[in-house]
């Protein structure tokens, strides 16, 4: 008898543990009648692509949490190739002021509170920058010419202690942009003194993307202090290319700002020039990093005092938003996540839109390829690709406003420019599938029935597999034999080797004006399909060598028209993006640019 009791008692303890967990869960079904209500999309969307004017702001106590993904914060210096990522920039861009930023449609917006700039001469290109008088680092040191001179030095000086000739040398500083700036501005910015607020860049040749060439500077006074010289001495050393100073400076710049996870550096080492700065003890490795309002910030202060960036995997974000662990999320834009988010009802606001990444089908112009020398063959393919169907079936369920993309250098959401360029370059002939026309072109090209067309893409990618299936369903009727050539090693092997007829992948738009030259001009590194067209080459040269925006527009029209007429490839759609946020949070805005929803985080405010 006794034993039986003892046994029972153990069991009672054991089941007690189980029941404890049981009683905590089913109880919640009282106030839970989450009927999917209509999602209210931002009604009063600001009409400017730049940050909206939200009036006078006083910083409210509180915290907003956001997550880009599970990647750990790496360090204060986001400009080395190892640390340069959207994850790291999500943190550092909050504490780095600059003369400009990308607006929601990729427009370059000026931040007048940081300073102003203007091209004093267009050809030769000379640009004068003036940092605002009250602009200071969070430790009180003014932001000056010295910071920008150092910024230039990190992108200009070679390992041999010279200014770069053609940007191909080994750089002294490990800067993600390499030596491009030094290539364009060999003299560096010019000013009267180290502490000057006004300085001028003299470009050696005209550069279309001059505006975004000058970005946020790193603090020169910290570098100088770390290598035991004064700021004036550092400035002098850069001007004289004095390697005895520059080498230790580069050493510190390259490695001195790398942090061990969870260990914030001494605040004196990591000053802020933006609305936020590191919060003391705010970084827990593997968990989150918290920024707090920069007390020394001279511009509009942040609306909410603290911003926490949590390191959580994207597939956990929706539930985290529901539970209030995150306030703003950017989940994977899939049909499933949209459905999940819509279930959350009115507690959550969903913003969908397009991004600056766009999907396209590119022909292989390499020797011996099916489409290489035959325009009718390319036209036959273009007539049978069901672009509208692909957008309707795969993209519209995510973003209702999605449309077929008909240009390469501009995006549908850049409405005015897009409409003008498309009107001038494309007559809409491939908008709808036209199988008769496709068959006619197919015969004209002299293609044999059942000609193999491999569509290569980087697998696994379910959406692209669906796209290929849709193309196969349509184009096989014309006589092509479409083959799904999805391969994990696509970029590694198939693309450089030319083992494909059609390449299906996406370019991430950089916001640069002239970056397309790399893709469409003869012999350029990213011209994988080996396309070559004299008109296009000339137009690119003309475009890249001027800062005149009307010329940019005209040349883009020429390029787009030629690319359509000769069928370089077929643009399909701009990738959709989704942002969801707690409904009580104001001023959250979706952006197409790669900075992510966090781009205007200093404006996020909780409704009180």
């Amino acid at each position, binding site marked *: 008898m006794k034993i039986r009791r003892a046994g029972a*008692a153990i069991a009672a303890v054991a089941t007690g543990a189980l029941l404890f967990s049981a009683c905590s869960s089913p109880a919640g079904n*009282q106030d839970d009648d989450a009927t999917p209500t209509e999602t209210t999309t931002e009604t009063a969307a600001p009409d400017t692509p730049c940050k909206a004017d939200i009036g006078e702001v006083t910083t409210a106590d509180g915290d907003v949490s956001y997550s880009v993904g599970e990647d750990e914060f790496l360090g204060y210096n986001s400009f080395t190739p190892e640390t340069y990522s959207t994850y790291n920039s999500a943190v550092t861009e909050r504490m780095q002021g600059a003369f400009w930023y990308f607006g929601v449609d990729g427009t370059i917006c000026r931040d007048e509170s940081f300073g102003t700039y203007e091209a004093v001469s267009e050809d030769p290109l000379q640009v004068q920058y003036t940092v605002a008088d009250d602009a200071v680092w969070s430790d009180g040191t003014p932001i000056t010419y010295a910071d920008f001179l150092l910024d230039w030095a990190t992108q200009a000086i070679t390992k041999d202690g010279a200014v770069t000739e053609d940007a191909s040398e080994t750089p002294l500083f490990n800067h993600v942009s390499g030596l491009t700036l030094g290539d364009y501005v060999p003299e560096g910015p010019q000013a009267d003194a180290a502490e000057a607020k006004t300085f001028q860049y003299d470009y050696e040749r005209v550069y279309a993307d001059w505006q975004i060439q000058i970005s946020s500077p790193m603090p020169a006074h910290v570098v100088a202090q770390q290598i035991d010289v004064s700021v004036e001495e550092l400035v002098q050393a850069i001007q004289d290319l004095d390697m005895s100073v520059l080498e230790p400076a580069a050493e510190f710049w390259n490695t001195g700002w790398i942090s061990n996870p969870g260990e914030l550096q001494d605040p004196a080492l990591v000053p802020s020039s933006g609305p936020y700065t590191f919060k003391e003890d705010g970084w827990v490795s593997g968990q989150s990093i918290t920024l707090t309002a920069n007390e020394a910030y001279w511009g509009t202060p942040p609306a909410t005092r603290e911003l926490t960036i949590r390191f959580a995997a994207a597939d956990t974000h929706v539930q985290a938003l529901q539970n209030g*662990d995150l306030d703003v999320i950017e989940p994977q834009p899939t049909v499933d996540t949209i459905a999940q988010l819509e279930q959350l009802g009115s507690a959550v606001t969903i913003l969908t839109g397009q991004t600056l990444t766009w999907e396209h089908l590119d022909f292989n112009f390499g020797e011996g390829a099916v489409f290489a020398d035959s325009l009718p063959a390319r036209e036959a393919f273009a007539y049978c690709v069901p672009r509208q169907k692909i957008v309707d079936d795969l993209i519209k369920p995510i973003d209702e406003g999605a449309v077929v993309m008909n240009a390469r250098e501009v995006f549908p959401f850049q409405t005015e420019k897009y409409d003008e360029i498309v009107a001038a370059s494309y007559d809409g002939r491939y908008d709808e599938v036209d199988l008769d026309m496709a068959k006619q072109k197919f015969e004209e090209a002299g293609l044999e029935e059942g000609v193999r067309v491999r569509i290569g893409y980087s697998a696994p990618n379910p959406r692209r597999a669906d796209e290929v299936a849709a193309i196969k369903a349509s184009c096989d009727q014309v006589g092509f034999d479409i083959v799904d050539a999805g391969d994990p090693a696509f970029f590694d092997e198939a693309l450089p080797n030319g083992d494909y007829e059609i390449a299906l992948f996406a370019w991430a738009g950089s916001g640069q004006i002239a970056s397309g030259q790399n893709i469409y001009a003869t012999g350029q590194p990213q011209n994988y399909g080996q396309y070559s067209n004299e008109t296009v080459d000339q137009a690119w040269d003309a475009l890249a060598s001027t800062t005149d925006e009307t010329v940019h527009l005209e040349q883009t029209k020429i390029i787009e028209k030629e690319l359509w007429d000769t069928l370089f490839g077929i643009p399909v759609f701009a990738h959709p993006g989704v942002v969801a946020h707690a409904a009580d949070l104001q001023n959250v805005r979706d952006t197409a640019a790669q900075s992510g929803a966090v781009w205007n985080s200093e404006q996020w405010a909780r409704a009180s």
Partner: protein
Amino acid sequence: MLKFILRRLGISALILWLASVLMYWLTVNSGDPLKDLRESNAENREQLMQQRSDILELHLSWQERYWNWLTGVAGCFRGECDLGTSINGSDVLNLTSQAAGSTLRLVTLATLLAILVGVALGILTAIRQYSGFDYAVTFLAFLFFSLPVFWAAVLLKEYGAIRFNDWIAGGQAGPLAIVLIAALIALVLAALLGGSPQRRLVTGAATFAFVGLVMFGLNVLDWYRSPFFGLGMVLLASLGAGALTTALVTGFGNRRVLYAAATTAAVGTVAYLVFIDILLDPSWPALLGLFVLAVAVSVAIGAAWGGYARKQAMLVSGITGVLTSLIIAFDILVAHWSGFLGLKSRPISTIGSQTPNFRGEFWESVLDKGAQLILPTLVLTLVSIASYSRYTRSSMLEVMNQDYVRTARSKGLSERAVITKHAFRNALIPITTIVAFDFAGLIGGAVITERVFGWKGMGALFLDALNRVDPAPVMAFFLVTGTAAVVMNMLADIAYAFLDPRIRR
């Protein structure tokens, strides 16, 4: 024996080395580390690719890179470990130690709980073979065992976090919930206690009424939002723990042991009052010191009461001391719950191992971190309880049918002594092996759980690195989990060889 151990060691080292070669080769060939750069249109793309190639030493053959890695690891024996740098320039040794720490925090509690509950369930189902309780546990064990972790985790977050948080905001159990919970407890208890149908009915009805009343009372007192446990309950629970331990180890027949346990419980409760100031605002070293003191005092009480049963009395009161300490800690935590709710209105988060920037005193942050442990621990425990309970059950059943158990019964030993001393000890032999295997497995197997609950542990380290085709962290992961697996298996083998001479060749 030494020869056996040395041979095992040699084989283990060889296996580990061969596996590391294979792992390295597989990682290096798992994709293209430059993939994201190839799709980029940065002007200095070539330079960036070169830069990354230099970091990853892509110009070398994989054998040479493996050799470099191996020599770095070999440095550990000279005290200068070099596990390489990751693709973004972080020191892998540092990353690994942080990740391993977080994983251990996650896995230890789950493993202990799983062993405890699993083995207990196994014994109980073996004793009550083919009863309703047995069938129910078997059914649940298989159910949990076959649960896909990611799915179970998402469900747990929905019910255990989101809906629980919604509910705790009001903190009142609805009538239906009370009836269901009371019925469930009644059912389980009736099945456990057994007896004639009539007796079960009485047990069930009484339990149902009791639980229902208690839950109603808790509602009235708003207990879920501002709970209390109380000194009286501490004393009662400690006494109960003492009695249970005594019943298991010696039986109530041995009064000296029972008295020792009771004294320990009483002294523990008094000590709670004495040290209340330290306990309410402690530090980890102070708590640890008090705990050690508690165990020492308990053992001394056992020694004083012991007499002829000195050893047993010391054991029992020692265990009672530990349990009393835990009950006191529980009481303090319960008392801090409402304060914690004030700081964090939604107590259980779906991600992370702690609340960012949590501003609470010592016990509140223990609650914060503890609350974050509950869900992932539950997932891991539920999955491994299944195998433990099944193994224990079958092993117990086998042993219970052995001749020596019959002999023990026939010479008049009490059923308690037969089960705990003769049957259970022998049944433990195979379970030891499984525990060793499992612990090693859990470190690597927590990959999904970690990811779903936003813990940055070994799993995240491995996954992230593999996605970027970055061999150094992958190999560090392998080094830790591989070594753990090999060492644990070896320990199990050795233990096995010690326990069962027949397998020593």
